[in-house]
């Protein structure tokens, strides 16, 4: 699947640029909130529409793209909307629309400052995310990856409290270092193969490598993508970044940034190294060890957190490693499950973060111990939360069950049952740290009268979270609903393993 | 060995001068002494070129009808001399600039000792 065999199309480029073009519009209408938000929505809907238009082609296994200018001799800035890229782009752009809607309720509900900066930074982040999804080679990937890092910084430090600034510094320290690893890895890859183009089945096919070289290179790559993918011990920026406003945590740290990380992991595993090379040097096993450790440790750490967002953060760390685990297993069901989990975890986690934010805006409560009885006051929100909790614990009929099922099947296919045990254990731990929240909300009495007189949160917030929860349920029942997630994911898995 | 030293006595002299000049420039603290060292250093290099232009048994590079102009070995090489004219001018200009700087420094700081001046500079930095 070389770049020359794909059809030229401007759609991927437009999809990336749409939100960038909205940025000056947002900045110039900073004094007129409704107009400003209109630009965000407009950009989001157009972006999603463009990505959706690429779906039929992606389902047929075709790629479209465009080669832009040469960035360095022999390497072009190139966009390619291959099936995997379209998959990720759909999730990111679709959920952005929800997040934008939700942001209105959140930011206005709290009277937050610097909203123009917020919305424009968001727009740039989404541009970068789509750019990451549609990158055709490592250098383009690095370009958008670094832009994403810089563009998320203003969002992390948005509140400008000392805590937020410290969180921002930590975030930058981790992500910039990761970027350097990625640059080093790309430079070595270029040196060995003379090509940086992503190819299903790996770039290294005709370039034999010594085992030590392969392992060092793999660790360089892992350092590069592992920070955003929150593989332990590179995860620690994520809980600290919860100092950001909740919509930022929701979209960026449950969908865009971290999913770019695991997207990168699968790109490295499937499109740079390739399953054959991974198996030859036991690199898949290394991945599985890191992932397994992360899943269990993160789940245990989540149990200890009283702050709701921090508990959700550790839960995210764990679930991201489901995806990494699936990538490490290198079987068709595992890869399918991993990719599905990118999508499904996104919808579930974003629901939870939306609920956390709604609780904060509505009742100014952040800690789980303060949440007694809120289910009576905010039934829709907590209902959605429950739906998501069921799904994240891997229970039907929510979509989380399906991705987990496939990951489990992948474990069987790979002739090793340890991942299966880890998945089961993690499911139990998930239940252990989510269901008590549900229980508190619905079955405990509130302390005193503090909840009296409060109702549900603003519809700007409740509608999106109900929609994402419903989506989780609907896709759980029929995974190919609307967007053919399932079909896409299994096609991509097949392409990787088939080494097209 | 003896031949080596005596035969190249000019160059040895030049290098000793160079060492003295460098010593003055680097080790001495007084600005004027540094300049003296600089002057010695530059002059030593000029002498180096001039010494290199010399030939055993040759005379000044003015055409002498008695010696004729066919054999260049009879006249010393004039090119390094002309190059050094330029170098002398450069040395003079540099010395002029350096002395102007020294005057300004003295007027402002009333001292020509490098250590004292640096201390003073750092102190002024911190109070700014």
């Amino acid at each position, binding site marked *: 699947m070389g770049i020359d065999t794909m059809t030229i199309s401007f759609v991927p480029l437009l999809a990336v640029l749409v939100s960038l073009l909205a940025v000056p519009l947002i900045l110039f209408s900073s004094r007129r909130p409704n107009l400003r938000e209109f630009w965000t929505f407009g950009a989001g809907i157009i972006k999603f529409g463009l990505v959706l238009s690429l779906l039929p082609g992606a389902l047929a296994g075709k790629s479209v793209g465009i080669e832009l200018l040469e960035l360095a001799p022999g390497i072009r800035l190139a966009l390619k909307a291959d099936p995997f890229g379209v998959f990720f782009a759909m999730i990111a752009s679709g959920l952005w629309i929800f997040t934008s809607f939700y942001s209105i309720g959140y930011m206005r509900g709290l009277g937050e400052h610097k909203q123009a900066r917020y919305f424009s930074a968001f727009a740039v982040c989404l541009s970068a995310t789509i750019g990451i999804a549609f990158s055709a080679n490592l250098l383009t990937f690095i370009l958008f990856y670094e832009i994403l*890092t810089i563009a998320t910084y203003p969002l992390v*430090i948005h509140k*400008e409290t*000392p805590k937020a600034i410290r969180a921002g510094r930590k975030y*930058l320290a981790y992500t910039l270092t990761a970027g350097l690893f990625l640059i080093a890895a790309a430079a070595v890859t270029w040196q060995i193969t003379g090509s940086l183009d992503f190819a299903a089945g790996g770039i290294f096919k005709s370039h034999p490598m010594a085992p030590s070289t392969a392992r060092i290179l793999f660790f360089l790559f892992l350092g590069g993508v592992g920070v955003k993918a929150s593989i332990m011990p590179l995860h620690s920026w994520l809980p600290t970044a919860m100092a950001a406003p909740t919509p930022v945590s929701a979209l960026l740290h449950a969908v865009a940034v971290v999913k770019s990380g695991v997207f990168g992991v699968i790109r490295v595993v499937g499109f740079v190294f390739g399953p054959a090379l991974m198996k030859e040097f036991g690199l898949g096993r290394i991945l599985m060890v890191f992932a397994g450790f992360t899943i269990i440790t993160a789940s245990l750490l989540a149990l200890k957190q009283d702050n709701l967002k921090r508990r959700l953060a550790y839960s995210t760390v764990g679930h991201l490693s489901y995806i990494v685990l699936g990538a490490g297993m290198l079987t068709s069901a595992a890869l399918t499950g991993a990719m599905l989990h990118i999508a499904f975890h996104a919808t579930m986690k974003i629901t939870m973060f939306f609920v956390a934010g709604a609780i904060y805006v509505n009742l100014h409560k952040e800690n789980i111990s303060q949440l007694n009885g809120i289910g009576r006051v905010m039934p829709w929100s907590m209902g959605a939360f429950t739906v998501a909790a069921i799904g994240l614990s891997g229970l039907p009929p929510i979509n989380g069950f399906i991705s987990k099922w496939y990951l489990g099947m992948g474990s069987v296919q790979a002739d090793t049952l340890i991942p299966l045990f880890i998945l089961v254990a993690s499911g139990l731990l998930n239940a252990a740290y989510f269901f008590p929240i549900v229980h508190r909300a619905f079955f405990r009495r509130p302390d005193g009268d503090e909840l009296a007189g409060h109702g549900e949160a603003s519809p700007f917030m409740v509608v999106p979270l109900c929609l994402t929860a419903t989506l989780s349920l609907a896709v759980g029942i029929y995974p190919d609903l609307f967007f053919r997630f399932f079909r896409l994911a299994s096609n991509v898995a097949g392409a990787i393993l088939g080494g097209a | 060995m003896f031949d080596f030293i005596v035969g190249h006595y000019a160059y040895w002299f030049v290098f000793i001068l160079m060492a003295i000049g460098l010593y003055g420039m680097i080790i001495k603290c007084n600005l004027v002494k540094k300049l003296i060292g*600089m002057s010695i250093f530059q002059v030593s290099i000029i002498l180096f070129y001039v010494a290199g232009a010399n030939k055993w048994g040759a005379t000044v590079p003015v055409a002498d009808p008695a010696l004729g102009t066919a054999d260049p070995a009879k006249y010393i090489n004039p090119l390094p001399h002309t190059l050094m004219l330029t170098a002398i001018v450069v040395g003079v200009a540099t010395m002029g*600039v350096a002395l102007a700087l020294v005057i300004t420094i003295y007027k402002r700081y009333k001292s020509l000792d490098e250590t004292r001046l640096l201390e003073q500079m750092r102190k002024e930095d911190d109070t700014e």
Partner: protein
Amino acid sequence: MILSNSPALVPLSLLLAAIVIPMAAFRRRWLAYPLALCASAFATGISVVNIIRVLTEGTIHYHFGGWIPPIGIEYVLDPLSSFVTLVVNAVSLMVLVHARRSVAAELPDKSMPFYAVVMLMLTGFNGIILTGDFFNLYVFLEISSLALYGMIAVGGRKSPIAAFRYLIMGTVGGSFYLLGVGFIYMTTGSLNMADVARIAPSLHQQPALVAALGLMITGLGIKMAIFPLHGWLPDAYTYAPSASSALIAPVGAKVGVYAIIRVIFYVFGVEFVRNSLPITEILAWLGAIAIIYGSIQAIAQKEMKRMLAYSSVAQIGYIGLGIGLANPYGIIGAVLHVMNHALMKACLFLVAGNYRLKLGHSTIPRLDHRVRRRMPWTTAAFTIGALSMVGVPPTVGFFSKWYLALGTIQNGRWLFLTALLVSSLLNAVYFFRILEKVYMKPLEGEAADDGSVSLDEAPASMLVPTLVLGIALLLLGLLNAVIVTGIISRIVPPGM
């Protein structure tokens, strides 16, 4: 006539301006600046013509006065020299546009001599780059050095001391170089670079020739301010007036770099150098150390110009590393970084100049968010400059690091790769510290949104060059492949 004489016109036009300015502006002070600006613009234009000529006709040898080398002095226009002259002249032009207000504010009664001296400095730089004769290079080296001493000395109270120290070190450097030239003349009998390149291999590493190489590199190294010969740089850049720093910092050390590249790669050749002294190895190590040392020192600085000075030490280390690697990617990275660093540093020093004019200072602890509200465009240019120094794509800074990284990998020098990458992080520390200060509101005390800080940007003549340089950082980053394949790849000496 212009076309055939184009190599000579660059330094000559600047020299002419240097002579005319004192005469014309003696009575009419206001004439000095326009003359300087015209000369600089003319020189830049001719530099562009030169590059076009080189790309179409190949290397051009210009014989001064019709005298054939090696007896006569010649100017050589090849891809390297035409590229570096264009960078020097174009960046200086931008800075000169900015300098009018800055000089008027900081050196009101000295503007006429200042511009004359600037023209002398540019004459010197262009002469160094274009000449094909060793001694001619010395002459221009000293011309530019004297001009530099003068430009630095007119700053505030402490600048004469900084200038004096620079004078001492610079004279040592120039004299070492002269000594090296003496050795070359005595062993090869020629002062012409191409001629010496032809003769040198047959001399088989004569001690005198090797000594010449060592002395020349040391002397030029002092001018280049490679660690540990950088001692003159921080004080000189800090205490000089803003316009001087902005003119010197981007291009001053680069001519030393250019001369070293010429000597190592074109005159002696890598083989000769490797067989005689481990110069490339030492340069690479010193470069790597400079990178780390400069970055760490920069973090410790409180004043912006001093911070930028130490940052320059680190950036020169990059170039030194690239030269020391002595492989195609290393050379490409080094030469590209000559251009990139010139652009970045010029942009940043112009920002510092803007701040000094409007705020009265450029001390980092005293910057806060009011700076951004007052001077948003300047701060935006600073942000782009900072991102470029850190190496975020698609700014130019990323690409120098990319090529240098490839160069280190090609030679298998992992330690250098680590130094290169770690420096990005160190750069991030001291730049993001400033960005935090100007983009965030203070944490306690201030009222939430005091609209009392109104827009009070630097005047257009200062703002426009700053922004042009900032945009150039992005544009030239995206277009860097064009520059690399078009010009820089031709600079790699044959046989590498």
